[in-house]
């Protein structure tokens, strides 16, 4: 086919915008495949590189992708909460900073975190206790789950008296392109320690996606927000209380997802198209004359509205 593209119809900026749109809408674990197709369609290395350079970091942070440290000292989650610079992400558990290549989705280097990148010992006690409990829970509940606990506000608070906020991120992804199936579970729990009111406010968002694409394209996209609160307690007690709260909400959500699925056949699906006609027998294609006839008659009798 001819490739005589008339220049000027779609500007490079528009092309970049479209390419980014495709990249950002990639299902979990599929951005590299999408990138390959986008590159082939654009036929313009320069435009592609700009689009990829802008889209990958956003996608990686949105999907909480998990990268391995080159020294095998563990994994780091790519999230906006752990972002120090465009390509630097902290792993609070190991106090290391990963230097990443967003487009290749790899961690190139690792460096120890500076003191000013880490929370105060007071905050770290809360953060670390919660991390221990959450890790235990994630290990039990998600076969491929990864989690991280960040301090997002008040990391320099030294002693009781001031508010601070931690964020728990849980990310579990399963990619099996050979079975035409990919999926991810992502949850974010914002935890505000309110010192004055001696209360901890919790806000969570859980997001689940699944894609099955053998001879078709079917996707699940589900999202749920929840809220809760508990009393301010010492680090270890808070960690236990918060973890069991998160466990409760996530378990509830999973069961509501299953309910949604089990309701499909009887209600949702049947409302759209029945398995069998209302007559409960296959349609009488061999005897359709009757329909035209009844129509004609009712028309003649003026019964046809």
């Amino acid at each position, binding site marked *: *086919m001819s490739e005589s*593209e008339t220049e000027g*119809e779609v500007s490079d900026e*528009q092309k970049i915008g479209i390419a980014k*749109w*495709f990249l950002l*809408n990639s299902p979990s674990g*599929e951005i590299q*495949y*999408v990138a390959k197709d986008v590159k*082939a*369609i*654009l036929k313009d290395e320069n435009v592609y590189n700009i689009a990829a350079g802008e889209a990958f970091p956003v996608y990686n942070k949105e999907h909480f992708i998990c990268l391995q440290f080159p020294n095998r000292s563990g994994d780091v989650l790519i999230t906006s909460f752990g972002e120090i610079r465009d390509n630097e992400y902290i792993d609070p558990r190991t106090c290391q900073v990963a230097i990443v290549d967003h487009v290749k989705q790899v961690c190139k280097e690792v460096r120890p975190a500076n003191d000013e990148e880490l929370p105060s010992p007071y905050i770290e006690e809360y953060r670390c206790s919660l991390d221990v409990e959450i890790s235990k829970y994630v290990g*039990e*509940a998600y*076969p*491929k789950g990864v989690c991280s606990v960040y301090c997002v506000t008040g990391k320099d608070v030294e002693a009781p008296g001031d508010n601070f906020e931690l964020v728990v991120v849980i990310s*579990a*992804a*399963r990619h099996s392109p050979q079975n035409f*199936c*990919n*999926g991810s*579970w992502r949850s974010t729990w914002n935890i505000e320690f309110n010192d004055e009111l001696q209360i901890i406010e919790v806000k969570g968002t*859980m997001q689940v996606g*699944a*894609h099955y*694409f053998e*001879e*078709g*394209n*079917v*996707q*699940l*996209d*589900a999202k*749920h927000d929840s809220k809760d609160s508990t009393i301010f307690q010492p680090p270890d007690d808070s960690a236990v209380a918060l973890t069991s709260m998160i466990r*409760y909400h*996530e*378990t509830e*959500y*999973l069961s*509501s997802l*299953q*309910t*949604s699925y089990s*309701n499909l*056949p009887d209600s*949702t*699906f049947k409302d*759209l*198209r*029945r*398995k069998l*006609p209302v007559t409960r027998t296959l*349609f009488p*294609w061999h005897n*359709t004359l009757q*329909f*035209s006839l009844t129509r004609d008659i009712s028309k003649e009798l003026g019964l046809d509205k």
Partner: protein
Amino acid sequence: MEAAMGLMRRMPPKLTETSLSALLSLLPDHSSDLLSQIDQPLQVMHDTDNGKEFILCEYNRDADSYRSPWSNKYHPPLEDGSLPSAKLRKLETEANDVFAVYRDQYYEGGISSVYMWEDENEGFIACFLVKKDGPKSGKGGRKGNLQEGAWDAIHVIEVGPEEEGMAHYCLTSTIMLSMTTDDTSSGTFNLSGSIRRQMTMDLAVAEGHLCNMGRMIEEMEGKLRNSLEQVYFGKTKEMVCTLRPPAELAQLLTVPDSV
């Protein structure tokens, strides 16, 4: 084109229209290929002649107008829009009437349209379309609480010329489905997707083309509905359970030694 089709297999099905228009602007030279190979959600128009609604697709389009199967007229009016032959138009009219009854029995509502046109080798092509939207808001007290649902079916049948009482039928069917529930207790839940299958048959024309085409469509719709429900939705559910196995659920709720 291959890369474009690759992208369409990955982009969220509910964004099909945006994906297609994005591809059209990147690949203007492939626009006719893109439009014929990528199915998009069906649109509906009002036939001003008799107040009935009809479905729009590439097959009843001429320039910027669409032909209604009920009045055989183009909307907006088009001077010399192409029309099927009188003989084929007769079959088309009958097919529209019968298919409307079929649609009512399976869908209990919705809109259907059938279009036919001659092809180059003495046969013809027929396109059967169904568009069904689920109830927009949850019915009080009913389980499921469906808030939005849409089912679009596109069946294109190529019918070869009749030879010794037999004809060759090649059916390509696409189902596009989207279901969304949204409530405060369980958040938003959207399952959507499209699948396409082909079926070919050589059948005796004794009972008429319509009878043969109808049976093939009925069988295909049943199969596709089944695979969507069992295989496609089943696989995504399986994926969710792989990410977070529900075994823990049982422990947590501590149902006293049941099942």
